[in-house]
């Protein structure tokens, strides 16, 4: 069968910066294929997709060498419009690519642009909506949809163009595991019905469940591995890609040593943050009700739950960004309402989901000084704190960091900078809202390591969709679902609770299964690498690396 997408020895250099983003990459995708493209941040994954859908060279000014064929014809000779009927593209964040005010208008957008007759457009909307199961949403405004729903709507909008292939850029980054599974199932079905799919994703393990036909692993723009999954699991760099637990076990000898997590003081005093019968909501709508919860001053707490369950809402109450409509929120034993903004700012360092939200200064130095100056600290103290904070997030050896405009840092660096901004206020508790979405494993590991090791920080509360991250870094996990706290337990206890994982927008990863099968002696569970080493000693003949990749 002829290839739908064929990239041969392609190199790309962006003219705006003169940077080479891709060096000699290749990819062949046939009908029925599901190809996975992975690699560290900035390795050129998105650039590869732009080559395939024609944004390069048609929209971006870039120098391209090599060959890019779509449907057997070179991309360079065709317009993006022509290509869009062959290759459909889903960008990373559905919020940014949805252009319609209503769901129906959004799905119609592509066919409208093609100038199709109205009857045909209506027919396509009905067909596509039925197919991905969003028929009930057609009249809803897109502004009011949850993250998972938006992703499905975006997918429907792409399918309405009837493409032969779809390319998807990090579809799982903002989704809860259950919604991610739903989307991947649809993509798998698209491939099974004769389409071709290219998925770019950091969360490799989740994709492996859907048996991709091939894997392309890029590093600094160059292909480092290309071929079937089995081979990839044998050679993938362990510290950089999140691999299935079985693979970790079989490659236990290569796993790097894990630094001991810093010791925590025992939790005996008054809780740092306490909810007593709290209801929270927006306007008429109550999101959470009857929440009773106490988070200790020296705890590491992960908050899990489906999109839109109210995880962010719950922790926003801690810093009074939302006030309880009923009940009471206490901070260190006294009501949060009695505290000043300043007092709260030094108790909690709150880092929002989107790092850009707070960056406005011309330089990193001024940005770091903004918060402490609002607190009325004196300049020398501010400067010393700023430098310490940068050191804590490993940004201090970046050249001229203090004078760089913050938004010119890479996305990962911006994220770390926002943590530094919080640290510079010397908070005792750090609250992170989805700290690692869309980041590769190595960045995640570094990031969490630094957040935990920061000297002034006694406790860490974080919201995440990444189950493994919660298991690895928290000593207590709270699941928010259906308007309240659905579960509150240690990672080991939670892993053992089988029923929970099929509910609450969660999905059991191979690490969950491993923790369940090999429960720790004490409450805290070992780092996955340590656990894998231990398990590999228990079972002398390591299981095959592909085990655990079958859909569960």
């Amino acid at each position: 069968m002829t290839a739908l997408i064929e990239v041969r020895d392609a190199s790309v250099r962006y003219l705006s910066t003169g940077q080479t983003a891709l060096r000699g990459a290749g990819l062949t995708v046939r009908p029925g294929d599901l190809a996975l493209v992975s690699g560290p941040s900035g390795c050129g994954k998105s650039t590869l997709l732009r080559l395939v859908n024609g944004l390069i060279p048609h929209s971006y000014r870039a120098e391209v060498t090599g060959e890019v064929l779509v449907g057997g014809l070179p991309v360079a000779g065709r317009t993006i419009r022509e290509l869009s009927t062959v290759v459909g593209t889903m960008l990373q964040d559905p919020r940014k690519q949805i252009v319609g005010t209503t769901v129906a208008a959004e799905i119609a957008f592509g066919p409208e642009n093609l100038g199709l007759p109205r009857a045909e457009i209506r027919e396509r909307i009905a067909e596509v909506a039925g197919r991905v199961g969003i028929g009930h949403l057609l009249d809803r405004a897109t502004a009011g949809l949850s993250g998972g729903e938006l992703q499905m709507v975006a997918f429907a909008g792409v399918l309405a163009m009837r493409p032969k292939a779809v390319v998807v850029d990090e579809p799982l980054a903002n989704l809860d595991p259950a919604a991610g599974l739903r989307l991947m199932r649809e993509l798998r079905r698209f491939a099974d019905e004769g389409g071709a799919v290219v998925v770019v994703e950091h969360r490799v393990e989740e994709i492996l469940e859907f048996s991709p036909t091939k894997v392309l692993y890029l590093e600094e723009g160059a292909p480092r591995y290309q071929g079937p999954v089995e081979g990839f699991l044998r050679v993938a760099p362990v510290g950089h890609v999140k691999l299935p637990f079985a693979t970790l076990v079989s490659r236990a000898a290569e796993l790097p040593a894990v630094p001991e997590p810093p010791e925590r003081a025992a939790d005996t005093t008054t809780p740092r943050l306490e909810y007593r019968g709290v209801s929270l909501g927006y306007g008429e709508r109550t999101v959470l009700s009857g929440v009773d919860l106490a988070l200790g001053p020296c705890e590491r707490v992960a908050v899990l739950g489906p999109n839109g369950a109210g995880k962010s809402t719950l922790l926003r109450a801690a810093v009074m960004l939302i006030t309880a409509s009923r009940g009471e929120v206490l901070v260190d034993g006294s009501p949060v309402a009695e505290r000043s903004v300043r007092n709260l700012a030094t108790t909690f360092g709150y880092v929002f989901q989107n790092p850009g939200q707070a960056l406005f200064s011309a330089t990193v130095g001024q940005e770091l000084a903004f918060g402490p100056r609002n607190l009325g600290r004196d300049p020398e103290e501010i400067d010393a704190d700023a430098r310490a904070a940068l050191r804590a997030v490993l940004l201090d050896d970046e050249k001229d960091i203090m004078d760089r405009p913050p938004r010119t840092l890479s996305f990962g660096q911006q994220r770390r900078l926002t943590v530094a901004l919080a640290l510079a206020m010397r908070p005792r508790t750090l609250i992170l809202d989805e700290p690692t979405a869309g980041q590769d494993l190595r960045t995640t590991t570094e990031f969490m390591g630094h957040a935990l090791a920061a000297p002034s920080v006694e406790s860490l509360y974080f919201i995440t969709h990444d189950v493994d991250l919660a298991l690895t870094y928290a000593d207590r996990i709270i699941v928010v679902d259906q308007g309240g706290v659905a579960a509150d337990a240690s990672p080991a206890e939670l892993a053992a609770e089988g029923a929970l994982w099929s509910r609450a927008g969660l999905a059991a990863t191979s690490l969950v299964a491993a923790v369940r099968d090999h429960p720790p002696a004490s409450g805290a569970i070992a780092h996955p690498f340590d656990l894998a080493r231990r398990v590999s000693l228990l079972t002398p003949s390591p299981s095959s690396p592909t085990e655990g990749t079958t859909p569960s």
Partner: protein
Amino acid sequence: MDVTPRYLGAGSFLSRRDPRVLLLVPVFYIVAVAGVDDLRAVLACTAAALLYYRAAGIPWRGVRANWAFMLTVTTVLVLVNSVLTSSISRGGGTGEVLFTVPLTHTPITWAALSYAATTLVRYISLAMVSFPVAFNIAPSDFGVAFARLGLSQRLAYGVDLTFRFLPSTWASLHETIDAQRIRGYEHSRSRNPVRRLLSLRPVVIPLTVNALIDAEDTVNAMDLRGFGGRHRTWMRELAFDRVDLLVLAGFAAMTAVMVTAKILGLTGTIWAP
């Protein structure tokens, strides 16, 4: 104030009209009442405007704040414009002086009052025909309405996109303010306008820059779905029905009468009882 588009008049007589009608009527009306100084003529037009506004079925609760704001500002404006300034001299010289304004010593005559009333009524009636544009057109109908009125297809879609971006911009404004509040930011209450403007930078700058960075993805997404061809279907089909044409014809006739009267010089003088 909420900036998300509010489709308050859903289901009313005007909401069932072709959105182009709702866009054209204010245009006719503006032409009709511009330059008319005769209170009786403006009142006649206002009757039509009132009827039109009633047909919009906009619930009073939803627009109470808007009307209060509009009336306050307009009243102040009219007072300033027609009582305290020289425009009063226009026909105000004749007639019996009722009283003089303290401080400015402007003489107030019946003609002056009539002139002020004309201006006020004109603004209020203009607001009445404009409110349905804001509250009776479904947000997703603006683009197609402008396109079918002859605007460039792409710019017409830009109007749709603006409505798509309004709620999300509003939401990120709040998130940005929240993010800065956590860093101890408080908006300056200083009376120095420069200082107050500077204190807005932590909000305005990240909001704008984020919107621009996100927009880059939106541009890509639109290109990738074939936006920008010469021909574009609008899924929403617009066609004037008989009632639409009647409403338009009514306002067109009113405008024609008013313009004729203006040309003949019938409405150019201030009416005094």
